């Protein structure tokens, strides 16, 4: 209930300042209640703080990587040598390792996640879908370092003894599966990542499939479509959202740190063979940050962090927009935490 009308005539000198204050107050609270104005301002500043945080992250990473940015420029991204002792810092091996391990992860986890989401939304009965869905989501609750521990002591030996010899025997004509078999390398990193992003992709795809109107399913069934043909109709409806889910999984895979660090071998090299050790951007930061004694070395590592931050921010942003375009009608398709 405003006591002064907003369309006041010319304010006299005495009134001017209170009017300005009043206008600001009304913009915060249409009721003119001081408590409301304070409350809204406080909540607003919390939201503002989040934006300030993101901006200051970019600024802090930029300023701390300035040394490396000035010294290497664009060549940082294409340099193949990473030799801190000689002062050579090229990020290409890390970029290569990050991309290859993430691609392996997607290659495995996308079909798996689609299958899970389709089963849980389209096929499983209600009493089964909820508990099983929860179990799949629990995979996302396992910390990265635990996946790493399991990767070192269970997955890597299994790959070394069974999987990699099998691949080398039957697909050894491909350069991908040649070289020495150690169980530690790009392939192991990719498989661990696949397990880690599967719950994330499948949760978002579930949201997307659930948002497809059931009239689509009924129409397909009424035309005599089989169960699978109906599912395909549903999938076509959700394509942008599924694409978003996959990109979201990619974003997660690009930035995963501990588990990959523990199984990928941590050698800055570019090799075609997936059996060979590699290195990712995130694991380079994790491993070398506390060792970096020279300013340039530290600066180069911060620049790696900046690259990772910008890339994952763009990837995640794009994914969110895609997912939101499908699930907008069902309010709040939030983060699959």
């Amino acid at each position, binding site marked *: 209930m405003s006591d002064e009308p907003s369309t006041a005539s010319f304010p006299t000198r005495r009134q001017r300042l209170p009017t300005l204050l009043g206008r600001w107050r009304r913009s915060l*609270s249409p*009721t003119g*209640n001081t*408590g*409301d104005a304070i*409350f*809204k301002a*406080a*909540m*607003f500043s*919390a*939201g*503002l*703080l*989040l934006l300030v*945080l993101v901006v200051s992250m970019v600024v802090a*990473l930029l300023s701390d990587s300035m040394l490396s940015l000035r010294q290497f420029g664009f060549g940082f991204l294409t340099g193949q040598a990473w030799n801190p002792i000689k002062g050579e810092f090229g990020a290409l091996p890390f970029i290569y390792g990050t991309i290859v391990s993430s691609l392996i992860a997607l290659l495995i986890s996308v*079909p*798996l996640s689609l299958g*899970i989401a389709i*089963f849980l939304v389209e*096929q*499983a009965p209600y009493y089964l879908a909820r508990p099983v869905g*929860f*179990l799949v989501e*629990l*995979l996302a*609750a*396992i*910390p*990265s*370092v635990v996946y*790493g*521990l399991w990767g*070192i002591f269970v997955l890597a030996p299994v790959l070394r003894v069974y999987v990699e010899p099998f691949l080398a025997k039957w697909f050894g004509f491909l350069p991908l599966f040649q070289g020495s078999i150690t169980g530690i390398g790009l392939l192991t990193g990719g498989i661990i990542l696949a*397990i880690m992003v599967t719950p994330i992709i499948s949760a978002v795809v579930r949201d997307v499939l659930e948002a497809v109107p059931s009239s689509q399913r009924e129409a397909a069934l009424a035309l005599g479509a089989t169960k*699978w043909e109906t*599912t395909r109709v549903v999938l076509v409806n959700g394509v942008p959202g599924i694409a978003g889910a996959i990109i979201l999984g990619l*974003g*997660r895979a690009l*930035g995963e*740190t501990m588990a990959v660090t*523990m199984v990928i071998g941590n050698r800055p090299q570019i090799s075609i063979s997936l059996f060979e050790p590699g290195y990712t951007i995130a694991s380079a*930061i*994790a491993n070398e*940050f506390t060792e970096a004694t020279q300013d340039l070395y530290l600066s180069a590592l*911060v620049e790696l*962090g900046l690259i990772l*931050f910008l890339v*994952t*921010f763009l990837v*995640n*942003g794009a*994914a*969110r927009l895609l997912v939101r375009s499908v699930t907008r009608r069902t*309010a*709040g398709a*939030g*983060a699959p*935490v």
Partner: protein
Amino acid sequence: MNQADRLRRLNSAVMTTLTAVCTFVAVGILAVILGYIAWRGIGAVNLRFLIESPQPVGEGGGIGNAILGTLILLLLSSAIGLPLGIATGVYLSEFGTGRFGSAVRFVADTMTGTPSIVVGVFAYAVVVLPLKHFSALAGGIALAIIMIPIVSRTTEEMIRLVPQSLREGALALGAPQWRVTLGIVIPAASSGIVTGAMLAIARVSGETAPLLFTAFGSRFFSYYLDQPIASLTVQIYNYAISPYDEWHAQAWAATLVLMSIILTINIGVRILTRKRF
């Protein structure tokens, strides 16, 4: 039934079975991982392991300081992250209809996918470098930054579930909006907000990467915020990459402790909120 129809049915049966197999594989992996942790961890967990601090190889030792450190880090990050996250969530649900609101919402969504190692680098730049040494404070701030976007989005969703009629009723009785929000809306959504907060705490309790060069880790009991502090996750990492079998066994035992905490929170929240979701 003609040949083509039979093929269609066969195709449908095969594909639907395959989706069930996918689900079975995922649940199977979960069972294998959890089962292996329980099998390797259970033998090494005892009271002394839970309360002692680490010792050199061959002399036993425990993870008491790491448990204390993780608790301190969680308290610190909750003290910073929960109020800010909840306030942001309240802003988004009660006021965030405009362009600014969507910007905050988008940034919060995108931040939940930001690699935690990057948050660690940021905390290093703004806390560790100025203070010139690793500290529990830096670790707590890093974890809080990870918490804020998660908590804000779950809070927003939970508050949105509160029926509009409740707000209108309170406003009609003459209550100002701040009292409506603080006295009616937030209490009505409180169990959901607590759920979101618990899940966020469970999530950051498993974070390692942002602690490596902020809280750093320590082999002693410490409760000073300006000193390096131990945490379960960093301890697990250091033991896992060590060459000693004894430390590997301790890593599994520490993992069992960590997983018990995380699973208890996740399953507990699930049971408490079964009706709502």
